[in-house]
């Protein structure tokens, strides 16, 4: 860039943005970290009492919290796995050329932009035990009357997530497939590579980084899913679909055990940071 500029110009440009982001991230996080060492109930109106690591100790010794971890893990693992498989299939399907391909891709990716709250509330109607159309279809196909929201709530939230986010996986994998250089597919054709070998030596190496990235994004996002589950099941019935983000919400804003909620939020955050690092390391090593 030319030297004909004020030295402060570039800094002035970034100051508002950096200041606001710093304010958004650093300040609340420090406050939350501080709160997590206090026993504080916002409803009681008593001043917070410093209790050190007591909140963390109680949380990590609580069987209920570990159960919430298992619930969250189940939801994340099964959703992301299904989305990966379906996204893979979709990507290969849309990799072929046919008329109306672009329109079909657009329609398939529509769920990505639809508001999670709308998705959650409307799936209540779709899964409704008496007049829900999913219930109706299931009965038509299997002959069983399946009450999704009472008997299989976990299945319901997974199916909802899969519906909304499989296209996300597809986008990544499709981008990978489209990025395979033409000469490579042609060479594979000339060398009469078997399908498995073609996949191993031509397709996989190109799409691998994108697959890793897609899994990273999806795992993170599934892990902190709140809106859709909150509006579809609210964590219930009972606590059967209460994932961690809902647990934190309930402790903080229904029971108002603020200190404890902040501690759990921090444990949650640490797990996310760890997961991110593991993924990034794996991705870098590849």
């Amino acid at each position, binding site marked *: *860039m030319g030297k004909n*500029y004020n030295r402060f110009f570039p800094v002035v440009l970034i100051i508002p943005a950096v200041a606001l982001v710093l304010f958004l991230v650093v300040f609340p*996080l420090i406050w939350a970290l501080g709160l997590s060492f206090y026993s504080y109930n916002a409803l009681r109106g008593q001043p917070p009492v410093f209790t050190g690591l007591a909140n963390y100790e109680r949380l990590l010794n609580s069987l209920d919290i570990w159960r919430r971890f298992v619930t969250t893990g189940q939801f994340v693992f099964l959703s992301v796995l299904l989305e990966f498989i379906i996204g893979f299939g979709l990507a290969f399907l849309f990799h072929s050329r*046919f008329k109306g391909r672009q329109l079909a891709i*657009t329609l398939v990716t529509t769920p990505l932009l639809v508001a999670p709250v709308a998705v959650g509330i409307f799936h209540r109607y779709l899964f409704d035990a008496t007049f829900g159309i999913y219930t109706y279809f299931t009965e038509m196909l299997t002959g069983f009357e399946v009450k999704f929201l009472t008997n299989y709530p976990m299945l319901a939230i997974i199916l909802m997530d899969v519906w909304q986010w499989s296209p996300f996986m597809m986008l990544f994998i499709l981008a990978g497939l489209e990025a395979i250089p033409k000469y490579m597919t042609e060479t594979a054709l000339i060398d009469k590579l078997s399908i498995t070998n073609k996949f191993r030596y031509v397709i996989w190496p190109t799409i691998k980084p994108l697959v890793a990235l897609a899994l990273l994004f999806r795992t993170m996002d599934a892990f902190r899913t709140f809106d859709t589950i909150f509006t579809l099941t609210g964590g219930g019935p009972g606590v059967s679909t209460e994932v961690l983000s809902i647990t934190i919400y309930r402790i903080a804003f229904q029971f108002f055990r603020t200190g404890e909620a902040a501690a759990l939020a921090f444990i949650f955050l640490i797990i996310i940071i760890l997961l991110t690092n593991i993924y990034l390391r794996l991705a870098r090593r590849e």
Partner: protein
Amino acid sequence: MMQRNTSKKKIIRKIKQIATYVMVLAVTAYFIFPIFWLIATSFKTRAQAFSTPPLFVWEPTFRNYIDIFLKRQTEIEAITGKELELATGAETFFFNSFLVTSTSILIATFIGTLAAYSFSRYKPTGTNTLMFFILSTRMLPAIVVAIPIYFFYRYIGLYNTYIGLILLYVMFNLPFAVWMMKSFFDEIPKDIEQAAFVDGAKPFKVFSKIALPQVYLGLGATIGFLIINVWNEFLFALLLTEKATRTVPVMIAGTRGEVGINWGLIAAIETLYIFPALILIFILQKYLLRGMTFGTVRGVKQ
């Protein structure tokens, strides 16, 4: 012999083609069906929406779309005899959503574009660290920062105000605006700007008159994604608003606990609510992957 072979190949290719079409049709139907059913339900009366088995053919009613904007309308429920308040007064919530979305996007885009330009062109000291830091906020779960922000807002009086919500959405969408716009600035050649500098142009002029016009499309795409982000945001709106400042998603979510709710009416509200998304999916299609990854994955030309 040769002839027969090619015709056989042709048949196989034809079958493959048909199979592809059948599969494409099936998956497209699967992903579009809930949205179709939502829109269909919005044209059903209360009774039609509650029908078992579900109605596939019915006489459409536009009543729901009128009802959305009617105020304080009540109806005696047939079964229980209880008086139900059907009135949604939804126009308030749509207005709130619109106000908050447009204002916060305007500010976030402005601030974000300035920063993105600086990061892309001048690369001030610490650019990489700052950019990485900004990106890392994408991983930050909203619920973690929600707790301190909720109490902070109540404390300083930003709770239940437009300004509070707008400020929050500006902060939350800045990282996206910065990364997206940087990815677009990075793509345009620097030659023209450099030439302008040689001619003695002022830096801000170079930015606004030369660099910015080249990324108008990218700016549009960024704004499109920001609209979706803010319009769809739920958790903070739920925590930080009350009746006067409540946005549409909070209102929709409020129908969750109700028994015997009017699904036709809810569907109509939701249809209006997701309408921008249904339009934007077509406009943003080219940038979808980019938007979902903060501009870090460019995707390929389709």
